[in-house]
């Protein structure tokens, strides 16, 4: 099956999602647990074999090691594994692909699914397996579409070739986005042109997710649910519900541009109790400029308090929140030792509280927040908000965190759970729980709190898209933006003319001619922006490409695994590749042409050792500075 397709055209040989909760008893057939299997044409026997064996071994290993399995390698395939709740994901690739890349790919895939569909368990309760199978297939093909071999190694954003584009156009795009943000309901946006990023305000990960929908609407495929086209804007505007993780939302809200402005407008009336009004951070924010970053950063750490400790450690903002370490540890303490009364409150009336939360949220998101607080009656909330001086979002995030802990404590072994390292216990415990006692879905999205073990703490937002031919303006907006006609019109009309102009300009730019095999090959990966610059001739696979890709793949894994490694030259009889990296970038360089003559013995005249200086000079004209 897998052999029918070109091995290099795609990364994934197998992908499946297996729901262990459906196969509990001896008599339950394995096939009941298979939620999705790629390639779909795989015979069911083979599907059952792979799912059954891998899930079984995965569970056995995770029991032995008290930690979820991460990779299962076979002689011909390597599988990245994710185990969460009773779900078991496996992504099988050729063994040549670096393990770090496979794992990253799987994480991306799952994140994509959650971005558009919300928590997995809930999606499978609300939608048919077939519908969701189509979703998985879509994301899978999107992530692999047009990928060169290098993009198997680096998960990168496709951007327009900035060397071909007038920088003023990029500036213009950035200005359009900033203009849109003047509307307080707009969180952040990006502008895409023919499936490539022109400008973005979002993190690379989030931009990547947004782009899936763009390519979707571009190909005019039908989305089964959640999409609504507004006829009032001549069919060029569409929107869909998306789900952001708490850290993603925090990142957006921490954007230095005008966020304070938006909350000022939005909140005074609806959040009268928010202590942030008197918070110390307020004083520093009298004037609002881009250089205002530090104070906004300190504001950021409010929401970060509400995130679970392990999230904080993963987040790039860790250093910022370190400033707040007393508060941080306080929140950790909270999450580990919830007060007894809050426990009781949850186990008695979990569903009703949730319902209320849901309702209040759907009524009015900002109003709802304060309501949650008053209902919550748990002292934790109060403490949090006092301590944080948190604005609405902060406290709101706190609810999810709190719920996550509570759902863990429903377990009979609750004392044990609290004692254990929260990183391990939280995931596994809620895993059991979700499988056994998840009540049937009561409400449509946005969001079921019972699922909210911290990673499931997904916050519904709306993705707004305005298409002008090949150009798309994508904005992440507050859910009620779509019902706020004034805001919508304001955004639409303020950007329409500029978008048309930008589109017209971009259209005239011819894509740079694919250069033939030059005297050298290079790849430059910007780890911060997740962009890749290369002169590698795509898929055609020149004589020098294959060795270059192989070396790059090895070196990239090595760089990933060895933090102190700065540069490396590797060489065999025919090729030599130089790799160097800093915190922000990785660069790989290979000199083509047959000037390599050496017997392998150390020789300072060996041309391999002149690669670093050559790379430095040659790559300057590609905008890569290695000095």
């Amino acid at each position, binding site marked *: 099956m897998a052999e029918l397709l070109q091995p290099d055209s795609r990364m994934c040989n197998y992908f499946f999602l297996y729901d262990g909760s459906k196969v509990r008893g001896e008599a339950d057939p394995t096939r009941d647990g298979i939620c999705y299997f790629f390639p779909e044409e795989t015979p069911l026997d083979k599907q059952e074999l792979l799912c059954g064996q891998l899930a079984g071994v995965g569970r*056995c*290993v995770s029991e032995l090691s008290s930690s979820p399995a991460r990779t299962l390698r076979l002689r011909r395939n390597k599988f990245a594994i994710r185990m969460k709740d009773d779900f078991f994901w496996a992504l099988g690739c050729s063994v040549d692909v670096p393990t770090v890349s496979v794992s990253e790919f799987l994480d991306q895939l799952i994140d994509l699914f959650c971005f558009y569909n919300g928590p997995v368990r809930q999606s499978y309760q609300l939608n048919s397996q077939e519908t969701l199978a189509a979703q998985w297939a879509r994301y899978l093909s999107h992530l692999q579409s047009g990928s060169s071999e290098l993009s198997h190694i680096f998960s990168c954003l496709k951007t327009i070739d900035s060397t071909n584009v007038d920088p003023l156009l990029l500036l213009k795009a950035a200005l359009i986005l900033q203009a849109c943000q003047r509307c307080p309901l707009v969180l952040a946006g990006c502008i895409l042109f023919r499936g490539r990023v022109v400008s973005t305000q979002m993190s690379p990960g989030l931009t990547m997710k947004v782009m899936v929908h763009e390519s979707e609407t571009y190909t005019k495929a039908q989305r089964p649910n959640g999409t609504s086209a507004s006829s009032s804007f001549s069919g060029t505007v569409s929107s869909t519900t998306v789900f952001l993780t708490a850290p993603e939302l925090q990142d957006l809200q921490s954007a230095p541009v005008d966020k304070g402005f938006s909350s000022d407008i939005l909140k005074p009336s609806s959040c009268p109790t928010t202590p942030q009004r008197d918070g110390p951070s307020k004083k520093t924010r009298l004037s609002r400029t881009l250089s205002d970053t530090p104070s906004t950063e300190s504001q950021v750490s409010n929401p970060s308090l509400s995130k679970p400790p392990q999230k904080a450690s993963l987040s790039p903002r860790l250093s910022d929140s370190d400033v707040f370490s007393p508060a941080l540890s306080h929140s950790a303490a909270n999450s580990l030792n919830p007060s007894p009364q809050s426990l009781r409150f949850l186990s008695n009336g979990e569903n009703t509280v949730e319902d209320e939360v849901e309702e209040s949220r759907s009524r009015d998101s900002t109003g709802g927040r304060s309501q949650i607080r008053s209902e919550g009656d748990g002292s934790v909330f109060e403490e949090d908000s006092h301590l944080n001086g948190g604005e609405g979002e902060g406290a709101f995030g706190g609810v999810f965190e709190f719920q996550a802990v509570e759902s863990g404590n429903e377990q009979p072994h609750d004392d044990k759970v609290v004692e254990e390292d929260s990183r391990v216990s939280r995931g596994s415990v809620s895993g059991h729980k979700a499988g056994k006692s998840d009540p049937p879905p009561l409400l449509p999205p946005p969001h079921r709190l019972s699922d909210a073990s911290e990673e499931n703490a997904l916050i519904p937002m709306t993705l707004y898209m305005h298409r002008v031919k090949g150009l798309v303006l994508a904005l992440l907006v507050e859910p009620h933006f779509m019902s706020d006609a004034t805001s919508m019109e304001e955004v639409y009309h303020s950007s329409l003319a500029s978008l048309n102009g930008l589109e017209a300009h971009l259209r005239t730019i011819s894509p740079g001619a694919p250069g033939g095999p030059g005297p050298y090959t290079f790849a430059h990966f910007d780890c911060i922006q997740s962009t890749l610059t290369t002169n590698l001739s795509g898929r055609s696979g020149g004589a020098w490409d294959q060795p270059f890709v192989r070396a790059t793949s090895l070196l990239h894994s*090595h760089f990933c695994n060895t933090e102190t490694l*700065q540069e490396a030259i590797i060489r065999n009889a025919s090729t*030599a590749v130089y790799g160097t990296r800093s915190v922000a970038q990785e660069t790989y360089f290979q000199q083509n042409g047959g000037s390599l003559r050496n017997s392998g*013995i150390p020789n300072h005249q060996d041309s391999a050792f002149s690669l670093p200086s050559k790379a430095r000079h040659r790559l300057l004209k590609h905008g890569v500075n290695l000095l």
Partner: protein
Amino acid sequence: MKCLLIASESAEMLFYWTDLEFQQNIQKQYGASQEEGHGFPAFEDSISTLFAPIIISFSTMVTEADSYTSFTTENNHIYVLHQFDECLYIAVNGDGEEKEEDLRRKIYVMNKMIEVLFGMVTLSGNLLRKELRARDTEQRLRLWKHLQSLLETYSHLRENDQSFLVEAVERLIHPTLCEQCIEFLERRLVQQINSSVERGGEEVLHAFILVHTKLLAFYSSRNASILSTSDLLALIIMAQNMYPSNVDVDDPSPEVQSGDSLSNSTDSIFYTPEPSPTDKDSKKPVRGSTPVFEFVDPDIQMAEDSLSTLEVYPPDPATPHKVFLEVSQKDGLYPMMPHSMYCLKLWPGITLVLLTKFPHSGVAMSVYTFWEAFAKLEKRLNEGQGGSTRGQPMHEVRSKLDKFLKTLALNGIQSSQLQNVWTEFKNRAFSRGGPGFSRDLIPWCKNMKTQLCGIYRQCFLSDSGPDDTPRRLSPGLRERAQTMVQEQLMDWKDFLLVKSKRNITMVSYPLSDFPGLVHFICVDRSSGQMIAPSLSITERTTSELGKGPVAQYIKNKMWSLVSTTRHYLQKGYSTLTLRDGDFYFCYFLWFENETGFKLEAKDIPIMPDDSAPIGMLAQNYYRKLLRYYSKNHPGETVKCYELLTVHLGVIPTEIILQHCRQLASKLWEPSRNPLL
């Protein structure tokens, strides 16, 4: 948290080794799942129950023509799996001290040690299973304990000894003394033993003297085949296991390096724990008498802990070990031919090893030849070529095997089962009306192979040989040999013990010649030898690298560099330079002919991640590499060298490369080597 286990396809535990942490972890888990039970079940039962799903799933996947090679978990536990014939090896690490490659190497080394101990019996899964899992509990525990301690000795060496890091033998560099010793071994020792009537039909083929793990002198008799590096390294592990010398600790203080006081003090300084655990009680006072140093190897201690419930009496260390080593003859390579290994302790840290040939070792060669013939036939039949060849080579085998069976009968070896299977085989293969050489013959090939291994086992592994005469060097002869060498080396022994710690030091490399050079290792892969400055990093000894953390850091870097270079070598890269932190690392692999002329580099094979580890101890990679390279150089002796260097990062690259070049050209030429 470490573990290594061997299981049969039916998930039967054939061997296991765990460290204390892993054992506790297993007991905790098993206890958790069996809360109602009374007390812990036997550890062996728990571990086999917990691993059973993995083992069974492995077999299932094998039938689907794919099999697991490794697992990792989010908390960075690593599992490596590998199947040798019918035995599945699983190695686990949960403390981050070993990487996947290390675990795979451990598995291969374990397999190598089992091959050395059981020879051709390892070729039959069924027989090996019986050997590893003897019915008699005491016998089984004794064997397991022996294997566990071998594994621990190996792990200890690999983590601390540079020669086991790169898997090449390190010689003591003292040309005059080496020469004297070789001459002594040849002219006096070996000659005397081989002409003695007390040698019980055995013949000394190889004799060598080890100072800790380093080779002082090695002599092979004229009619002996070359002892492969792989076997030599395995024998050093066995010798170390018998007489462990904790190389890191027992360093004589400098003030006693000369003078007579040394000879008095060494005995107490070099206290080495007896391998026998039976004298546990007597050990304590001895330990107390050497208050400064804790000489009990922690690994050994652990082995005792993990099997503390057993009271197993190991065999007398003076009895020879049966070892099965590779023999190359004009007509081909015979792996796993029987030898006896006599390990005679001269002084603590200095050991004389004698390898002798069995009187009936010709039988082993015949058995192997027949076994190989049936294995080849089986392979051909599996590939569906049986019909075309009509088993031409088998006609030759037929007459030879008939003759062989008669010889066996004459020597009183039980061979009726082999006889029966062979008759049946002949009926099927050669009779006119029979099925001939078709796939139906495959099970009979397998059966023949098993029977041949059975004969081999009967001849060389069972305690009573074909005749009941004890075939070994008499104790008197052994004692005399020991005394002879002791007398010869008496004046040198203290020097040797110091020398083994400071074989080469970086001080001998003038700073003016090699500024910024921190460390290097140079390996001659054709002869399996290495040269490297000593890296002793104990509290007491101050090497040029300084003490404590810095030296430890360099050592760790060196170890990780070797594993990195192997990874790139596996992927076909023979040159590597790395700038890592404050250091600059270089690695080169190249070929020369015998006259030292550098040969053109050639792309070397790219291998999958789960291929055999690169090294010489198990599955000699370099031998294959040399064979591969020599294809283009027929009639020329090709040599393969490796050089690893560590420099300070501030040194300009050109200078570093010049150093490498100088080292590469100088090291193996005694006249120009400043060290020799």
